[in-house]
């Protein structure tokens, strides 16, 4: 013992190998001695050894028990079992590859969706104790959530329920850094923001209340990310300036990583004081109060409910103190009638990502979870089928003295190895896929930046998913091993009876069939509903129509007074210049991007006639002349707006057909007057035309004839937001550079990107299309898995019953009788699974309705088609094994072992 210890530098590692050899030596020495004893008693050598072996009993069992005693036995056994499992998997590479692929898909899809959910909903803001932060907003009588004015900050900060308040306004601004212009997110923070939120600084100081005053020296704080990307992390960053609009801002600080801003998906690398923000809105006097998102930190021990109660108690005072002085009586009344609401701001503010993608992402999550469940059930049933085929191998192991526990460990270990490989591939692939999809989504939906990756929650999710899978497989293996160790496995080959020992597999298959049916039905519904969505008559002709937003170059609008004078003639000229370009059929301005936003909502109230008290809630959109022509819509009655200055005596309004109908005879309406909402310049408008109905808002597909009021772009140019240019080309190509050159030549604005109206429609329906695509892909996968499962079960049975079938055939059974026997049980199985599946489909219909348009779960055509598809798949799966059974030659079969 001691000599090899001295020679062996790695006693622990090599000990296993030595022990195996030692044990063999020791036991065979025993055998020799016993045999010699028998020889001495007069037996010949061969007989002596035979008797010695009989007396000794199972050599393998003794070895096994000795191994169990060994201190390192678990390590040895683990290594041996691991090697054995790898060998066993390698013997059947197709099975291993398919299982790993299934698990990779299943786990990958779930990780991709969960990491997106994590980024959207779960990840907390990287500020001090984000759980205490709440967002405060107002709710108008339509139930729309709206921001409050910054005047509310002072009275709120006196409220004892909060230890601090912060008002934030976020914009996209063209910022000039080192002479290069770039559109970046900027956040205008009220003076108490940094302190309230507890944002850590990497360099310099934060924005203080002293910076947040009118006429204070303009200062800016930038994020670590911008400091590194645009300034190369230079140490002398403090004191440098950047230009936003007409103003130069001195950089006073850099925030610490990983803070990138408060708005989900839209980083704001530049932060400036609220009252020092550049004034882009061409609206006259510089405002002293802004619409802001309000974040507040709850005081210790104050619950959200308590905090809400305290702001509701002060509602009147809060609103009265914050209502802007320039509001007219009607707007003032509307503002004071709002109620207040509050929600957790733990994961920051949402611009539109959560609202837009929250529901679809959860629906996709359910889809992926169902997929993983099907894959798991499928693998369990494949494993059962496989172990049935391995009955003989396992029988031999049992005969050699391996325990049932050992068999279970070997079987379970194979599955665990499969799950782990699948999990690793799935996690890597899943995160990469999520990033790819989000990058694509970001291109489509205006450059949002949602970081997807590993954090504690994603890791926990992966561990939980993998844990559940491993548990399912281990339970299957244990069950299997127990059954096999009781079965008389050695005697089985080829002499079984149809349908023996496959109950477990059948149950799993029925479950799988039911889940697959639900998935296939769901994907058919999604596909039908997407087709319906594209059949909607939007009332426009979207072909060859292009959209471009005009953004101001820094200082492009100069000061508001100048811009108010300059804007109308500038836009008229611009439109004329663009229309003069070759290949342009017509062009128009609007303030609402078709299929992205539907304008703003307000009450439309006639001023004359019987209906003067009748108010109708409508969407208000500012449009220039040619808007209807550009979109291929037409004026039914009256006339379009006029481009030439002074052509119209009084400001006009064009109503959509369905809005006009609510006021009576459309033709009689022309020339009458109405007022819109509370804005002063919209209190007396002459109805100059009625346009055919058009729908450019797909968020409510139930209403394709919305009430729309179009106001004259040329008359009401002090609208918030930048104008959107619509262009109709004669051919299918747009010369974007020519238009960019025209806009740039005028020196006020620039165009970042053009998009086609058709692609805006695609984008508006993106979640529906994606759901249809994903569920379709998953359905195919599930159908394939079901087919493989059924195929495996039948093949096993046929090969197991070769002898029985042979005897039956020899005794004169007709092949059709044999086929009938095989097919009868698969039919029972499929029908049973389908019944559960249809019930399941009805059960999840509530979840689906939000994404379905013009089709319901109770659609008989889709259900029948789904059932037929499943029967077809089952029939194909049954084909090969049945044919194999029918080709059995009775003579061969009886010779079969």
């Amino acid at each position: 013992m001691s000599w090899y210890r001295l020679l062996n530098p790695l006693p622990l590692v090599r000990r296993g190998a030595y022990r195996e050899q030692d044990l063999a030596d020791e036991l065979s020495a025993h055998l020799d001695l016993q045999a010699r004893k028998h020889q001495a008693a007069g037996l010949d050598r061969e007989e002596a050894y035979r008797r010695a072996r009989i007396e000794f009993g199972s050599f393998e069992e003794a070895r096994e028990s000795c191994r169990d005693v060994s201190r390192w036995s678990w390590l040895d056994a683990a290594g041996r079992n691991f090697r054995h499992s790898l060998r066993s998997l390698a013997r059947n590479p197709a099975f291993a590859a398919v299982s790993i692929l299934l698990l990779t898909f299943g786990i990958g899809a779930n990780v991709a969706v969960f990491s997106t959910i994590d980024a959207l909903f779960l990840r907390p803001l990287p500020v001090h104790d984000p759980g205490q932060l709440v967002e405060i907003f107002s709710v108008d009588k339509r139930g729309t959530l709206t921001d409050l004015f910054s005047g509310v900050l002072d009275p709120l900060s006196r409220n004892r329920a909060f230890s601090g308040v912060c008002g934030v306004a976020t914009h996209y601004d063209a910022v000039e850094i080192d002479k290069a212009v770039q559109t970046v997110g900027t956040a205008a923070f009220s003076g108490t923001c940094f302190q309230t939120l507890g944002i850590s600084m990497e360099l310099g100081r934060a924005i203080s209340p002293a910076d947040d005053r009118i006429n204070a020296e303009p200062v800016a704080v930038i994020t670590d990310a911008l400091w590194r990307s645009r300034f190369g992390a230079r140490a002398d960053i403090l004191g440098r300036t950047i230009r936003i609009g007409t103003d130069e801002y001195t950089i006073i600080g850099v925030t610490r990583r990983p803070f990138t801003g408060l708005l989900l998906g839209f980083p704001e690398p530049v932060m400036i004081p609220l009252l020092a923000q550049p004034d882009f809105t061409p609206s006259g006097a510089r405002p002293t109060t802004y619409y802001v998102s309000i974040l507040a930190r709850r005081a210790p021990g104050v619950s959200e409910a308590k905090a809400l109660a305290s702001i509701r108690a002060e509602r009147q005072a809060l609103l009265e103190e914050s209502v802007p002085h320039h509001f007219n009586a009607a707007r003032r009344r509307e503002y004071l009638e709002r109620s207040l609401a509050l929600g957790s701001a733990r994961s920051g503010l949402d611009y539109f990502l959560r609202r837009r993608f929250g529901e679809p992402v959860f629906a996709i999550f359910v889809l992926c979870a169902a997929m993983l469940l099907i894959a798991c059930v499928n693998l369990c049933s494949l494993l059962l089928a496989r172990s049935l085929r391995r009955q003989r191998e396992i029988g031999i192991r049992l005969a050699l003295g391996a325990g049932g526990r050992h068999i279970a460990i070997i079987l379970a270990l194979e599955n665990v190895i499969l799950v782990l490989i699948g999990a690793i591939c799935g996690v890597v692939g899943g995160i990469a896929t999520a990033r790819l999809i989000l990058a694509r989504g970001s291109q489509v939906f205006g450059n949002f930046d949602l970081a997807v990756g590993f954090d504690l929650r994603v890791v926990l999710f992966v561990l939980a998913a993998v844990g559940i899978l491993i548990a399912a497989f281990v339970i299957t293996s244990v069950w299997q091993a127990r059954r096999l160790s009781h079965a008389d496995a050695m005697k089985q080959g080829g002499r079984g009876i149809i349908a023996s020992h496959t109950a477990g597999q059948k149950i799993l298959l029925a479950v799988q069939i039911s889940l697959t049916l639900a998935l296939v039905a769901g994907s058919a519904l999604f596909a039908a509903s997407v087709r319906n969505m594209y059949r909607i008559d939007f009332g426009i002709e979207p072909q060859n129509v292009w959209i471009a937003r005009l953004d101001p170059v820094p200082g492009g609008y100069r000061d508001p007074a100048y811009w108010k004078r300059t804007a109308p003639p500038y836009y008229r000229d611009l439109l004329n210049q663009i229309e003069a370009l070759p290949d342009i059929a017509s062009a128009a301005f609007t303030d609402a991007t078709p299929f992205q936003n539907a304008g703003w909502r307000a009450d439309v109230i006639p001023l004359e006639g019987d209906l003067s008290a009748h108010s109708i809630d409508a969407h208000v959109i500012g449009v220039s002349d040619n808007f209807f022509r550009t979109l291929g819509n037409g004026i039914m009655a009256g006339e379009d707006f006029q481009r030439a200055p002074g052509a119209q005596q009084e400001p006009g309004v064009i109503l959509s057909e369905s809005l006009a109908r609510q006021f009576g005879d459309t033709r009689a309406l022309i020339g009458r007057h109405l007022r819109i909402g509370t804005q002063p310049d919209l209190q007396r408008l002459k109805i100059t035309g009625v346009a055919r109905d058009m729908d450019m808002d797909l968020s409510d597909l139930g209403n394709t004839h919305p009430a729309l009021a179009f106001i004259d772009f040329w008359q009401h140019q002090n609208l918030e937001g930048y104008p959107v240019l619509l262009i109709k080309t004669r051919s299918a190509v747009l010369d974007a550079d020519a238009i960019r050159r025209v806009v740039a030549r005028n020196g006020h604005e620039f165009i970042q990107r053009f998009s086609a109206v058709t692609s805006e429609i695609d984008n508006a329906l993106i979640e529906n299309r994606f759901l249809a695509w994903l569920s379709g892909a998953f359905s195919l996968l599930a159908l394939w898995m079901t087919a493989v499962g059924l195929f495996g079960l039948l093949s096993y049975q046929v090969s197991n019953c070769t002898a029985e079938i042979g005897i039956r055939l020899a005794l004169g059974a007709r092949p059709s009788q044999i086929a009938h026997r095989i097919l009868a049980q698969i039919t029972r199985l499929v029908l049973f699974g389908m019944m559960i599946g249809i019930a399941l489909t009805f059960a999840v219909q509530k979840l689906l309705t939000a994404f379905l348009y013009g089709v319901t779960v109770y659609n008989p055509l889709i259900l029948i088609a789904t059932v037929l598809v499943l029967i077809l798949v089952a029939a194909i799966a049954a084909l090969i094994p049945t044919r194999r059974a029918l080709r059995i030659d009775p003579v061969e079969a009886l010779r079969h072992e």
Partner: protein
Amino acid sequence: MPRSRLDLLQGTLDLLILRTLSTGPKHGWAVSERIQQISDGVLQVNQGSLYPALHRLEQQRWIKAEWGVSELGRRARFYQLTPAGRRQLEIETNEWSSLAQAIGKVLKMA
């Protein structure tokens, strides 16, 4: 050949092995032969349980093993009692005697 075979009670094999080894180092076969001889063939050690028992005792450090050469000139493992094993033998012997005595009393009285 034994006249009648008795199955060894759980735990008694350990005691017998320890007692057998108390007279000097032996390899496994010798241990089983010795037990069989002394008991006049009544106690027959199942070889399948002898070696696990030897390994178990070794694990508990009551016996230790060394490689030596058997009567046949082959490599064989020789087991010998450790001081801890000697103490354990004493304890187990006492336990056994009191158990045997108690059982004997019950059988006589009842």
